């Protein structure tokens, strides 16, 4: 290690004087004597050595074998240590990365079988919606007007509630039936929806998969566009039904039931006889049941408006129908760009992880090398210590 310390001025002056004497610019008999004796005591180079060096230099030292003064493993210690550290780090990162890397399989779809979900309020609400239609339902084979659940208000200023639904049939090559089915589920998940029910059946060279999806109504159009790109669209229908009345009815019933309960509670507080108390309690039970029912109807109506039903049928066909869709297309430039961006993001992630592993490994290797060099330097200096066996 070199320390930059200031030289004593007297010492510096004497050194300059000495250099001047050695250069012949000044006379100092004592210093000249020292220099002469030092040079006289220097061993002259043996002629044999000079000849060997001349010959070796002439051949570019090709014939001279490198003499190993130290055991080969002593020079490989530091690099081997660094390499071992790199291997350990790579194994650690690979293990951690493998555990955290999850499969991207969708959670909402079930493939190869039927997954029935217990009927929920949606099914019940859709069954009762036919009795509640007043503005009527509209269906079309093309995209219906996109009505958000509360886009408009009726004459009374009450927000409109619209229940939306769509059905889509797409064809895909039989070999891609499973992949396409998986993509349907992933689409639902990605858009904030879920698969209510799915059924995949493969028969010989063909097959069919049906899905009952629930998609947030605000994202229905996006969902239909994405699903249409999964294969060749054979049919597509959309329906919308105004369920404002159903919603209002459920809310009104809920308000009435609550008001009745409040009144009964007041009456119960003023009741004096056991007959009165029993009677009021009985009516309170009825009121509570009405409240529960109204709440359920209101929740169902709200859910029906917020989540659109999407029925998807994927038909596996032989040949190339679905490989090049006329309507939706199998691989559009936009999809290609999306895929390319996906590949880029994965490659970037791999590079970042590799760098994250390589940088500390390189630091460890460098530290090991520096330590080895320091050790070697110290060992060499120790060899000059008089009386010190190395």
């Amino acid at each position: 290690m070199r320390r930059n310390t200031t030289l004593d001025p007297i010492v510096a002056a004497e050194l300059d004087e000495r250099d001047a004497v050695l250069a012949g610019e000044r006379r100092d008999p004592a210093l000249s004597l020292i220099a002469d004796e030092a040079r006289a005591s220097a061993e002259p180079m043996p002629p044999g050595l000079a000849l060997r060096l001349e010959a070796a230099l002439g051949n570019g030292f090709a014939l001279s074998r490198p003499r190993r003064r130290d055991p080969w493993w002593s020079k490989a210690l530091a690099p081997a240590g660094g390499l071992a550290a790199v291997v350990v780090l790579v194994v650690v990162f690979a293990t951690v990365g493998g555990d955290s890397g999850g499969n991207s399989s969708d959670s909402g779809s079930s493939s190869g079988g039927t997954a029935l979900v217990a009927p929920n309020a949606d099914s019940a609400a859709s069954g009762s919606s036919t009795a509640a239609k007043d503005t009527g339902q509209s269906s079309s084979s093309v995209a219906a007007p996109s009505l958000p659940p509360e886009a408009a208000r009726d004459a009374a200023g009450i927000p409109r509630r619209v229940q939306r639904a769509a059905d889509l049939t797409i064809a895909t090559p039989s070999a891609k039936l499973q992949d396409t089915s998986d993509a349907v589920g992933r689409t639902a998940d990605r858009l904030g929806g879920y698969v209510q029910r799915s059924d995949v059946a493969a028969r010989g060279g063909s097959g069919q998969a049906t899905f009952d999806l629930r998609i947030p109504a605000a994202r229905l159009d996006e969902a239909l566009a994405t699903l249409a790109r999964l294969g060749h669209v054979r049919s597509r229908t959309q329906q919308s039904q105004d369920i404002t009345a159903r919603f209002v009815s459920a809310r009104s019933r809920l308000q009435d039931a609550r008001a009745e309960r409040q009144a009964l509670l007041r009456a119960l507080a003023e009741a004096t006889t056991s007959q009165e108390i029993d009677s009021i309690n009985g009516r309170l039970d009825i009121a509570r049941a009405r409240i529960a029912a109204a709440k359920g109807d209101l929740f169902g109506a709200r859910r029906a408006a917020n989540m659109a039903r999407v029925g998807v049928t994927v038909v596996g066909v032989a040949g190339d129908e679905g490989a090049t869709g006329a309507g939706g297309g199998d691989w559009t430039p936009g999809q290609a760009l999306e895929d390319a961006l996906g590949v880029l993001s994965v490659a970037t992630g791999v590079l970042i992880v590799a760098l994250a592993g390589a940088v500390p490994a390189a630091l460890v290797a460098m530290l090991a090398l520096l330590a080895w060099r320091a050790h070697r330097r110290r060992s060499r200096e120790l060899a000059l210590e008089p009386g010190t066996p190395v």
Partner: protein
Amino acid sequence: MPELAVAPEPTNTDPPAFDALYRANAADVFAYVMTLLRDRAAAEDVTMAAFERAYRKRGSFDRHRGSQRAWLFGIARNAALDELRRLKRVAPLVGDLADERATEQDDPLQRAAVRAALAALDPRERELVSLKFVAGLSNAEIAEVIGTSPTNAGTRLHRVVVKLREACNAP
């Protein structure tokens, strides 16, 4: 007093330039290595190894880090110290060389005193004397060879010269 002959610095490390570097410094390098090892056979081997190592590393020489002579002597130093480590021995008794000449009857007393003082130097001090007075390296080059600052090298060299002067002036 003869001036120290310092060979001109080769401008590159191509084979002709290396050849010039060798011719200008071979004898001094051997003398320096001999100073460290005090064994002729070992010094010959180490000198050979040093020039071979320098030849193989000639492409890695960076003139911004110092002179080519200092670089060469640094390689020779490391090779000599590695040899010392390998043999696991210290340089022989310092009186070896002095004994050869002490018997000469016609040497002035002062010259003999200086010679004895030179022989009595420890390995580090002998190294400095060899680099300065035999090889003719500057203080900066010496510092580069032994791996210290020029100030530290100058101070150490000054101490050695003072010690030798005292021997020279001793009654």
